[in-house]
């Protein structure tokens, strides 16, 4: 793993960047945590393995990090998609960051479990960006990754197969677990609003109470605000302390975007965004 260290060290010593955001091991071998290296010697702690779950793009829009000046960030393919989307949405400028892409060999669903076909994260199974599309330098080598069953897709199909009433009941129960800690929002690289709509009090569109009604609206609007934007890193679901299967929403929305508009979020930084553009031929079967 000298590669990442060499690259990161070079970036820091040459002064090309003021900080490198990467991963360090924490606790046991099956856990990492994000780390911001500001001194060349800090990068010695950097690791790249199958437990680098965090999407570090989330740090790029944070005021505490942007204060640091130009930063480099280690990005898996999915993370690089988030960076692309952030550039599309004017949150960062390509020239202000340095993306250290990694040839990704998949990650686990969560920390503290073995990396194998059972525990591989769903997003890695059919990944088409194991080599990030957007990167300034690239480290690591691709290796075979375990194949596994895409359980989340299966769950989505399962939900789709239910009738409307069952679907409502299912989501009502899931959303009812929500405690409004907003970890999903904070962990999302694309939730960068200065003030979330749920915190807006004039008017309060979404009730901040963790009641059925407030939870339903919140989860619905969160999914809608990410429609055509979510790049599928699944950090929201991992961050949720109540185990609400948020990817069922986000992924479904991405599937709709693909079906309806052949749109993939975070693949082209110059492309028009899904919401914000239109086509004269957009489907209007449902409009009388």
């Amino acid at each position, binding site marked *: 793993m000298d590669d990442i260290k060499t690259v990161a060290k070079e970036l820091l010593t040459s002064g090309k960047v003021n900080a490198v955001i990467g991963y360090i091991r924490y606790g046991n071998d099956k856990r990492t945590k994000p780390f911001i290296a500001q001194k060349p010697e800090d990068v010695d702690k950097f690791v790249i393995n199958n437990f680098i779950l965090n999407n570090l793009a989330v740090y790029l829009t944070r005021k505490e990090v942007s204060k640091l000046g130009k930063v480099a960030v280690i990005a898996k393919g999915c993370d690089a998609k988030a960076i692309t989307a952030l550039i599309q949405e004017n949150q960062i400028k390509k020239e202000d960051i340095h993306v250290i892409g990694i040839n990704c060999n998949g990650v686990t669903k969560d920390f503290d479990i073995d990396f194998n076909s059972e525990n591989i994260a769903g997003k890695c199974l059919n990944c088409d960006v194991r080599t990030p599309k957007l990167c300034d330098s690239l480290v690591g080598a691709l290796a075979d990754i375990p194949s596994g069953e895409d359980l989340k897709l299966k769950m989505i199909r399962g*939900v*789709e197969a*239910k009738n*409307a*009433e*069952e*679907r*409502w*009941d*299912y*989501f*009502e129960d899931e959303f009812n677990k929500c405690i409004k800690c907003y970890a999903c929002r904070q962990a999302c690289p694309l939730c960068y609003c200065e003030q979330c*709509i749920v915190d807006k009090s004039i008017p309060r*569109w*979404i009730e901040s109470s963790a*009641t*059925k*009604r407030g939870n*339903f*609206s919140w989860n*619905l*609007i969160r*999914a*809608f605000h990410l*429609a*055509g934007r979510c790049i599928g890193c699944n950090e929201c679901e991992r961050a949720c302390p109540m185990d609400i299967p948020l990817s069922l*929403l986000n992924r*479904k*929305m991405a599937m*709709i*975007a693909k079906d*309806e508009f052949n749109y993939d979020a975070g693949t082209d930084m110059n492309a028009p965004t*899904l*919401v*914000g*553009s*239109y*086509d*004269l031929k*957009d*489907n*209007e079967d*449902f*409009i*009388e």
Partner: protein
Amino acid sequence: MENKNQDPKIVAFVCNWCTYTGADLAGTSRLKYQPNVRMIKLPCTGRIDPVFIIKAFEKGADGVLVSGCHPGDCHYNAGNYHARRRWIMFHKLLDYLGIDESRLHFSWVSASEGKKFVDVVNAFTNKVKAKGPFKKYENINKEFVING
């Protein structure tokens, strides 16, 4: 034909230039329609945010009607195109979440389509009436019942 107790409750979000004016035309033409719809006038369908629809359901609407200018006719050139794209995503999301699709109706009604306005309102009112109260939403609102 008219229902005294004003149920179901239907909220309509309409644009000022087409549907609102179309409804005016229905009035000038003295076309009768069912009285359940309460219209909220907006400048353009582009102004209609999905949260409006959610809020209307939260506040007890049994149905929501959204209507504006036909594609190409937008007073603001493209507001309805942007709106249409949002609605595509939104109505699919609602459907996925199990919100009964038939409680949300999208339509294009131009300023000259007083008759179509009446038809849309009547058909939708009948549909919602047949469905009865929006039980699912009532259920999540019901938590609210005063227990003091």
